[in-house]
């Protein structure tokens, strides 16, 4: 929480102020500055904090589920492709059997396995076809068609080939019979024919070019031996047709095998494509799971932390402000910026504080009134004391004058001249006494004419004052100790008034010590030579604490009548104040009293 405060009165506080008649000065109401505030309640914040990590987990889970589902589907496609491959292998096995045996049975097997393949193809749903790829399927269908067509052609070719083989054999036998009947020229021997027939069988058995070339050479020899052998011609023709038929069959077999391999390639391609897709899905699922896990591990704790902070922040701010308020600053108010449950808490708290402040102010006012009354009462008592003092002090000399005058009036005729002089002197001295009292009084109230101030050495004034009372100290058996520096300290003052101050205090000290004791006078500079301190201490009876506060009051005295008017210390105080100084007293009953007079040192500007 920052210590930066802003002075923002809220409308709520104004309402409260007007209602409770609190001081409406908005500067009085201080609010804690708050950071960025969210307009959310605590439970909203909690839900956000919990929901976001849960959503991450949920999205990750859903996506993973989707991918796994896809993988499952693709697996069935792979199965489908594998099944087709099986069918195609079956077809090709039948193809091989047919090529080997050239039997109609195997041809039928082949056709039946092709029908099964076609059926299984047509059983695949269009959706699956779309998923796997239309192109592959149409190519597959076309290839099956072509393959099947090639097989039909081959079958027809085989039938033709059988006919040709039969014709070759028959013509061979006819040629054989012709030679055996010795109707042919002698060169065309039986051995030659038998060799020819062996070469013919070889060719039929191996169907290769070598065998054919050997047969063809033998046939060419016939032509050489008998250029126009009519009985030989059909056989030669038939042998040539056989060669053509064999070539044609080989071409068709080649086509068939190419188409069969094409079929295998397509199904293999479909299966491998689906496997690739499955691998890609698995890879993506793997990455997604990793990402979700990463987000959960990083964002999750971050969100939980942020949520906790957002929830706790307003409570913490409230706690901080309550702490500050408890330390005594009643002008502070809880911020009303939150929009969560702490708002009403802060509001109630502020209302409570308003009441508290109101009560506090009312109490302070009562205290002030009480204090004013007390001061008034003290003033009255003080005035009464002053008047009583004046009365007492003036009535005594007046009474003396009155009694003396009355006595003179009564006994005038009987009185000697000396007596009369004494009486008149009494009247004069008592008048002087009254005048002095009035003078002191005027001095105290400060209405006397201005005292002349001049630059003077205070050390000298202190020493002169001590000389004035030296005799009194001796008579009263009082030991004097001084601690006065052998230096000159100038003050702006009036020597006789300052002497009056010091003498007054010393005389009081002498009275306090009665017949024995020690008076200590100490002069020392203070506060970096700005002031001078004069300390006058006695080892007298001391002043009780309750009386200390009154000793500078006029007419306050503990001395017997005649020993003091009660104006001494009040006049002393008044004189020190006139010198821009200060007088302090500390005392312990039974140990003594110390008066400290502080006077400002002379400055040229004064």
């Amino acid at each position, binding site marked *: 929480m920052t210590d930066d405060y802003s002075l923002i009165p809220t409308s709520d506080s104004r309402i409260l102020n007007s209602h409770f008649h609190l001081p409406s000065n908005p500067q009085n109401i201080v609010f804690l500055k708050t950071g960025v505030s969210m307009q959310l309640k605590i439970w909203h914040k909690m839900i956000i904090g919990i929901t976001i990590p849960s959503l991450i987990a949920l999205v990750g889970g859903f996506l993973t589920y989707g991918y796994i589902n896809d993988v499952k589907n693709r697996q069935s496609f792979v199965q489908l492709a594998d099944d087709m491959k099986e069918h195609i292998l079956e077809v090709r096995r039948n193809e091989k059997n047919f090529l080997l045996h050239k039997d109609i049975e195997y041809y039928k097997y082949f056709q039946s396995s092709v029908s099964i393949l076609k059926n299984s193809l047509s059983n695949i749903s269009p959706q699956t076809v779309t998923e796997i790829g239309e192109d592959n399927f149409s190519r597959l269908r076309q290839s099956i068609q072509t393959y099947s067509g090639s097989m039909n052609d081959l079958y027809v070719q085989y039938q033709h080939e059988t006919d040709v083989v039969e014709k070759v054999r028959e013509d061979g036998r006819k040629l054989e019979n012709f030679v055996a009947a010795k109707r042919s020229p002698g060169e065309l021997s039986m051995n030659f024919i038998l060799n020819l027939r062996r070469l013919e069988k070889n060719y039929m058995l191996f169907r290769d070019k070598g065998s054919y070339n050997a047969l063809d050479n033998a046939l060419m020899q016939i032509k050489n031996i008998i250029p126009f052998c009519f009985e030989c011609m059909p056989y030669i023709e038939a042998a040539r047709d056989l060669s053509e038929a064999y070539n044609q069959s080989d071409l068709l077999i080649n086509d068939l095998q190419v188409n069969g391999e094409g079929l295998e390639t397509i199904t293999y391609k479909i299966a491998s494509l689906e496997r690739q897709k499955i691998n890609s899905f698995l890879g993506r699922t793997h990455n997604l799971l990793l990402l979700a896990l990463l987000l959960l591990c990083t964002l999750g704790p971050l969100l939980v932390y942020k949520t906790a902070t957002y929830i706790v922040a307003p409570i913490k701010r409230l706690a901080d402000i309550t702490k500050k308020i408890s330390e005594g600053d009643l002008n502070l108010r809880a911020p009303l910026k939150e929009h969560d449950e702490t708002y009403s808490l802060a509001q109630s708290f502020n209302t409570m504080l308003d009441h508290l402040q109101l009560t506090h102010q009312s109490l302070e006012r009562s205290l002030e009134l009480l204090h004013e009354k007390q001061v008034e009462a003290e003033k009255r008592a003080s005035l009464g004391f002053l008047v*009583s003092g004046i*009365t*007492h*002090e*003036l*009535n*005594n000399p*007046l*009474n*003396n*004058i*009155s*009694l*003396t005058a*009355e*006595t003179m009036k*009564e*006994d005038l005729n009987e009185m000697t001249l000396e007596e009369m002089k004494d009486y008149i002197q*009494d009247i004069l001295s*008592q008048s002087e006494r009254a005048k002095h009292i009035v003078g002191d009084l005027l001095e105290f109230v400060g209405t006397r004419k201005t005292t002349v101030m001049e630059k003077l050495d205070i050390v000298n004034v202190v020493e002169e004052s001590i000389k004035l009372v030296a005799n009194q100290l001796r008579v009263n058996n009082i030991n004097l100790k001084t601690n006065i520096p052998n230096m000159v300290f100038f003050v702006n003052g009036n020597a006789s008034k300052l002497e009056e101050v010091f003498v007054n205090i010393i005389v009081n000290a002498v009275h306090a010590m009665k017949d024995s004791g020690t008076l200590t006078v100490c002069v020392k500079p203070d506060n970096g030579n700005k002031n001078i301190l004069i300390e006058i201490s006695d080892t007298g009876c001391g002043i009780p604490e309750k009386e200390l506060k009154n000793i500078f009051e006029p007419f306050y005295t503990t*001395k*017997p*009548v*005649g*020993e003091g008017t009660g104006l001494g210390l009040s006049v002393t105080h008044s004189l020190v104040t006139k010198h821009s100084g200060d007088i302090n007293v500390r005392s312990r009953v039974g140990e003594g009293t110390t008066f400290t007079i502080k006077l400002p040192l002379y400055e040229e500007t004064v």
Partner: protein
Amino acid sequence: MPDKLRLMIIDDEPIVGKRLKRLLEKDGYNVEAFTGGTPALEALEKQHFDIIITDLMMGRIDGMKVLETAKNKNPDIKVIIITGFGKKETADEALNKGAFDFIIKPFKFEELHKVVKKAETELKAKDN
């Protein structure tokens, strides 16, 4: 009882004692003046006095103390208080403690004289 009444005057203002002694002696009283309460109480221990005229505010032994001591010793004694400190509360206190009268300074001798005469009359009436 001797013919002349014995009067004691106590005041820490010596002039008061001197002037009153002269005036009262002329009226035929036997007068002794004391400055302060201490010597007065000492004298009161040893001698008989009929009337005491005492100031009130006098250092350690004040008029009130003198009044109490004198009344304890001799309840018939007449104590007249003279004071420059004219507060009603003080006067009431003194009268409650048995003071005969309370006179405020400055006073005319005639005033005191009347009070002393009255006290004398009362004393004589009691004797008779």
